[in-house]
Every structure is written in C-alpha cells, then in structure tokens.
C-alpha cells in the first residue's frame, strides 16, 4: 500500500496545508474565518426572503428557514471543496514543477479543510435548529458518517477534475456551471413533493446522490429521525467507486503534470 505510506510520510505537509487553507484563506480580512459561515448564511437569508414570494408552493414548507439552512450548508461544503479542488493543481503549479511530493496530498488536505469547516458550520445549523423551534436530538451522532460519505464523494470527484483540468482548462468553467445547476437538481430550496407529476425530472432528481445526502442531513438535524440507510449505503458505494476511478485517473495523468503546467 504505497499510497498510505506516502500519505503517512507526508502527514506534516497534510497538516500544514490544512492549516494554511483554513487560516490563510481569510488572513488579512477583518472578520477572518467567520466569512466561511457568513457566506452561506447570507445566501440562506436571501433565499428565505425571496423564495416564498416567487415560488409560492415550493416555499411553503414548515419552518422554511431551518429547511434552507440544513440544505445549503452541506451543499456549500461540497461546492467549496470541488471549486477549490479542481484548480488546486494549477494553483500549486509552482511547487509541483519543482518539488517531489505525493500530489494527492493537495487534494486530501482540501477535503480535510472542507470537512473541518463544515463541522464548525454545523454549530450554526444547530443554533438555527434550536432557534427556529425544531430542536435537536441524539440522531446527530450520524452526522460524521454522512459527512464522511460526502467527503469521499467529493474527493473522488476532485481527483478526476483536477487531473483533467491540468490538460484542459475549460473544466474549471464547466464545473462552475454544473455546480450552479446542481444546486437546483437537489431538494435544497424546495421539497421533493413539489415535483410530483414531473415524471422523468422527478425520477432523475430522486436518483441524485445529493438528494439522498441532503435528506439524510435534514432527517438528523430537523426531523429527528434515522436517515435512510439503504439510500446512504448506495451513495457510499457510489462514492467509493468514484474514488477508485478518480484515483486511477489521477495517477495515470499525474506523470505529465510537471510538463503540462
């Protein structure tokens, strides 16, 4: 298992990278790390104010504010990781061209800092749950499991995207668009029953792994239920498959990085 050995040997790089990601990102700004929560929060506010007016039926959910928060924060976790991960080879081209180290460390640290940020953000989700009257329960112990499934899925995806990005730099913009679209392809703003009778669209959206993940988050945060185990298991298997394929693609393309960058 050369992979594990490499990563273990370079664990300090992983740690310092995470530190740089989390603390360095907002260094120099007045509110610092608070921005990583403020952004999704402001986004929630906008949707909360605007959505019920323009979408009528879709916004008519009990405790819509809490519903939004429990959807948007996990989704932000994913988009942050994918956005940053896709360009991470390009952004670090300086050291990739000059120093040997296992390149996957860059991506793993990206996911790790994402997950740490997410766990801190979860405090805000909990505050909202309590504040809006939804309350909290012991079902929250499932949170790490769901988060890890999401993290594995993101890691697999950025393995593929970051490697291709080195060769075709359009990927970055395609990803930007797909993430925008993905926001509407999962029940983040609306409830699944809005789509009743939409036929194939409903089918597709219910097959979206993020539909499963976000419903699972809502189950444990808002509805105090155990999440759908079979759904999560399916997403977990999918995530593992993507991770394996991603790692294979990454390793295949990695050798040309220094020449192409």
């Amino acid at each position: 298992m050369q992979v594990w050995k490499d990563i273990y040997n370079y664990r300090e790089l992983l740690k310092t990278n995470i530190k740089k990601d989390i603390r360095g990102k907002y260094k120099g700004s007045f509110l610092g790390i608070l921005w990583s929560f403020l952004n999704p929060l402001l986004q929630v506010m906008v949707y909360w104010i605007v959505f019920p007016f323009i979408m009528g039926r879709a916004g008519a959910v009990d405790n819509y504010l809490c519903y939004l928060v429990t959807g948007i924060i996990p989704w932000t976790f994913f988009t942050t990781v994918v956005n940053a991960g896709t360009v991470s080879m390009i952004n670090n081209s300086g050291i990739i061209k000059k120093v040997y180290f296992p390149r996957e460390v860059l991506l793993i640290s990206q996911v790790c800092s994402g997950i740490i940020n997410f766990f801190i953000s979860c405090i805000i989700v909990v505050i909202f749950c309590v504040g809006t009257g939804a309350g909290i329960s012991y079902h929250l112990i499932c949170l790490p499991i769901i988060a890890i499934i999401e993290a594995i899925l993101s890691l697999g995806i950025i393995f593929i995207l970051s490697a291709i990005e080195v060769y075709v730099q359009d990927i970055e913009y395609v990803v930007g668009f797909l993430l925008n679209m993905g926001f509407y392809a999962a029940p983040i703003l609306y409830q699944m029953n809005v789509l009743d009778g939409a036929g194939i669209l409903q089918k597709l959206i219910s097959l979206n792994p993020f539909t499963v993940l976000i419903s699972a988050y809502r189950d444990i945060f808002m509805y105090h239920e155990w999440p759908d185990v079979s759904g999560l298991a399916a997403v977990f298997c999918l995530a593992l498959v993507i991770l394996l394929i991603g790692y294979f693609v990454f390793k295949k393309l990695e050798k040309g990085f220094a020449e192409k960058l």
Partner: protein
Amino acid sequence: MENINAIEVRNMSKSFKIEYDRANTLKDKLLFWNRGNVEVHQVLRNINLNIKKGETVALIGTNGSGKSTLLKLMTKIIFPSEGTIKTYGKLTSLLELGAGFHQDFTGRENIYFNASIFGLTRKEIDQRIDKIIEFSELEDFIDNPIRTYSSGMYMRLAFSVAINVDADILLIDEILAVGDQHFQDKCYAKLEELKDSGKTIVIVTHSLGEVKKLCHRAIWIYKGELKLDGDPIYVIDEYLKQSAIDHKEERKKAKEKGEFKSKTIMYVDSPRDLAVVKNVNKMLLRGWKISDEENTKLKVFIDDQEIEGIQVQPRPDVYEAYMEQFDGMLDSNQIGWKKEFDVTKLGIGKHFLKVICLDEKDNELSSKEVEFSKE
C-alpha cells in the same frame, strides 16, 4: 549484499513534445486537433550512470544541454520517455527555494510549511528549527510575517530550510547564488559538512571553481549525451576546451551569415579619468583590451599624437574574469598594455588620452578616451 549505488540511470532517454500554439482550451482541442504543430525535442539520449552513496557529483554543461532535466528526472518530477531511473534512500531536491511559503504567516510557521513539503515530520522539524533559524541569521525577525521580509532575507530563510533537510540524497540546481558573499561561503561550508557526513550530493552549477573544490566527480552532459565522467579537474578542462571550439565554430557560422557582431572591451587603468598629473618625466599609461576578433591592433594617442612603443603586458586578473565569456579567444599574456610617458613635453592644462582598437582591415572596433590635466 547492500546496494552501494544511490542513483542508477539505465538507457534513459527523455524527449519533450513542443507544441506551437498549444491548444489549451476545449474549443481549440476540438477544432484544431488535427492541426497539431508538434515537434519532438530530444533532450537526453541514452544516459547510463551510477552515482554511489556518499559521492558528491557535479553535472556540468552549457545552457540547454539537458543537465537540469536530468536532475528533474532524478527527483521524479518528470519521468523518462525510455529507460529507468532508480534512487535508493530519502531524496530531497533543492530546485525551488521557498516552496509553499505563505506571505501572511511568520517566518517560523513558514519553516514548517516549507520543511513539510520536503517530507519532514513535525518532530523532525522541531529538532531542526533552532539550527535553521541560526543558519538564516534571522533571529530578530523570525516571528514577523514574511511579507515584511526583504528579498534577501526571504532567500536566506528558504535556503536555510532547504540545506538543513538532511536527506540521504541531495539534488541541488543552481541555487547557491543566494545572498551576499558571507552567506554563500556559509552555504558552501555547509555543503562541505554534508559531504563529509556521507551524504550523496548531485549539484548542477556553472561555478566551475567550486566544482573543483567540492566535488569528487564531474559529469559533463553535452547536447543531451553523457560526454565525459571523471575527476572534476580533467572533465572541466575538457569541457572548457570543447566550449572554446564550439564558440569559434559559432563565430564562424555567424560571420558567414554576416550576423556576427564582435565584442571588444577596453579599459584604461592609468591615468584615471579626470586625473590631475604633476610635471614628472615618467607617467605610466596602462590599460587592457580584450576582443573576440582575431589579430587586433592597438593604437594610443595623446591629443591626436600617436604614441609609439607600446609594450604588451600579461594580465591574468582580466583573463580570469573574462575567460568564460570569451571562451578560447584570449591569451592571458597579450591582454594588457603599458607605456611610460614623459609628461614634461605636454603643456599645462587639459589633455586627452585616446586608445583605439582596430581589426585586421583597420576598422575601428572600440575606443576609449580619458581626460587628464597637467598642473
């Protein structure tokens, strides 16, 4: 039996694809996929090499000969097109200084960032941190953010981390030209120390003098091939001979094409410009000229009056300085000139000393004028 080699290179070739107008975007790739202006450029050809543990080896060669590429291949940043490269032991490459530095963090934190890229663990860095700070001579500034550092301080910090990494194999690319003379001496002393402690060092450099002092062995890469491998003094001598030949060759070609521009440098040591001279009967006129033209002539005038009987003088100091630039064109014994001149003949006031260098056909190559006055 234990392997005594640190680096083994076998039948190794490397070629780069050079794409003109590289199709970078998806649109370009789709539209112009068959219009590829791809040229394969062979950088290294069939290299076979063993570097033993504990050896200090220099790679020498002219720019573009492929020596840096070979070093990059050894670090596994790029990979051979054919053949294999194997390394045994922990390897660190000092190809880039300050990798992973972050402007907003302090010097101390950046030491951790930078050292972690070289694969050190926290414990290992903790052990070295005092040594690193001491070596960089930045004790007073180490807890300031490095955006406040001057570029010299930045490089010193970066180099101190790199040199203290302590791997079994160290690959160094032309980075020893850091900081002032004092710091450079310190770096070479450190390399000397590493060499004595049995590390394997591979170094790419143009400072041939240092190679002779530091290295056990020099490897000369010539146009992508391994030309010579052996004792530094011999290899460097052959290398200089070859580059002198190449230089002449190039000059010849350029001359045929009519593109050749000759280069002549002149200097007057005495009198200095705007000097004041007493009324003595012996004033020393002295200077030197170097040129890459053959059979140049020198003429010296004072106030348009040609001075006869100029003596030729050896100038090893000038030769040393320009040896590389004027590969093979200089004769140490023919560089300087001098003449003792009787000032009493001159009237009081301003005078001009003019030195002109002429080529075979009496075209002026260069001239130098110095003004002096007599009391």
